[in-house]
């Protein structure tokens, strides 16, 4: 079985499984102390490595987390100021339409080319960085 067929089979089996609920971008407003308390009370999806916080003109911060609707209700019930943002799962589903289909490189018979510009035999040109 080649990898394409295997991935198709895997996709079918995956779709039949229980898929987790959608996640929303939730922006929580507060102080460092608020966020410290928040992290102790809830395990939150804060992105890849750690949370991203934007500092507001009034000195407070806005932390971006990804949470289900249920979790957002719990956060609000616990007294946190949460602004419900976009459905990031839905954005992801839209982006799934921008994923390659099949194999554009035909198992390695087509050579990939990068987006960088290759210009002349410009051995004299120096890095600007």
């Amino acid at each position, binding site marked *: 079985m080649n990898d394409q067929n295997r991935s198709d089979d895997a996709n079918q089996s995956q779709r039949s499984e229980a898929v987790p609920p959608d996640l929303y971008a939730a922006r929580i407003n507060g102080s460092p102390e608020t966020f410290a308390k928040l992290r102790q009370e809830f395990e939150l999806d804060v992105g890849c490595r750690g949370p991203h*916080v934007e500092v507001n003109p009034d000195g407070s911060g806005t932390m971006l987390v990804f949470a289900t609707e249920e979790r957002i209700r719990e956060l609000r019930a616990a007294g946190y100021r949460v602004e419900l943002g976009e459905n990031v799962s839905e954005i992801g589903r839209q982006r799934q339409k921008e994923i390659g289909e099949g194999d554009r490189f035909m198992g390695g018979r*087509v050579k990939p080319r990068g987006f960088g510009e290759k210009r002349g035999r410009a051995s004299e040109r120096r890095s600007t960085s």
Partner: protein
Amino acid sequence: MSFLNVVEIESALIGLASSYPSVTQLITLPYFTVEGRQSHALRIGTGPCRRSAVLIISGAHAREWGGPDICINFAADLLEAYSLGTALIYGGTAYSAAEIKSIIERLDVIVFPDVNPDGRNYSQNTYPMWRKNRNPASSGGQASKIGVDPNRNYDFLWDFNAAFAPGAQAFGTLASSDPSSDIFHGIAAFSEAETKNVRYLFDQFPQISWFMDIHSFGGDILHSWGDDTNQSGSLSINFTNAAWNGQRGLPADAYGEYIGACDLANVAAAANAMKAAIAGVRGETYAVAQAFFLPSWGSPYPTSGASDDWTYSRFFTDPTKRKVRAYTLEFNTVKTFFPTWAEMQQIILDVDAGLVRFCLGAVPRFSLSYWLCWWRHRLNDAIWHRVFPPELWGPYGPWARIRRAVESILFPIVAPLLRLLGTGARRRSSGGSRRR
């Protein structure tokens, strides 16, 4: 054009290896994922001996789609520019043909674009926000508990409950022993095929001296350490010292992870050079920071079992290993996992410009030993092997067979004589010792 799927990533590597056979090596990684996928890496480099290598990995977190696309484009750009002898230009950042040549001819660049293909496949086809791999071993049959976070599965303070202060857990980024968590660290360090494959590359290429793990998002270039504050004062205060167990992961306390002052300056300088190269493309501003103090607000974010810390820690655990300067890059300054493909193309230009700069920084600067080695090989090829062809004089040539035949006749006669001479010498020596 579009994001690469998991099949295309592997095909792209095969295509690059077959298109540039003299400067590439396709590396088949030995550990199959739970869904039966086998990954590949690509080594780019030429020349008879190399003093240094760079390893670039990506795709550890499934939903961070653009990482493998960045790596494939980077490899394709380097190889094409080298083969054509051209400059390589990313917006306002340009590299001369000589610079590209120096990377290819004096360095090994190893690219492992898709560490976690099962997770990527699931994210791209089923649930976009999936982060972990698809290992069901700890799930107990529950879909919500499938998967291990590969970037908490490396052998660096993996047992976070023992190594870190209880308070460090509250930051929410350390790791988790709960399979339903997005940062579940697995049942043991290196329990996962994904991390074993990365370790395999380090074992196969011990000359790796620089490491980059590409993630998203944020627009950050993060350097060591990720478990605690840095300190350069006391070498004995470090992750190997069990006396500090239970005290790591908190700021402004007695514990800090040791990093030499020169090392710290070097890793920060390389990160800043990369930042400048990225900014040169179209003005994107990436932040350089210690991983523990991920650019954010108000508090640190310790991690356990992360790739960059394990990579840098190897030298401290075993000084016979090379010291590897290790980084994590969080691409995309717009805070989303899913840029449009049009946006992603711009990000690819940004990051690839940074990666070329990163590799240039890794090219050995002191080149005397390299050139001596290079000339030795040239002289071997040009003169020595012509005068003394290996087919005649080598270990499998006729002269070697004759020599072995003579040795087999003489050895039974000569060996007892040598033993007698050796025994006599030892007796004289021990007699002398007694007299002293």
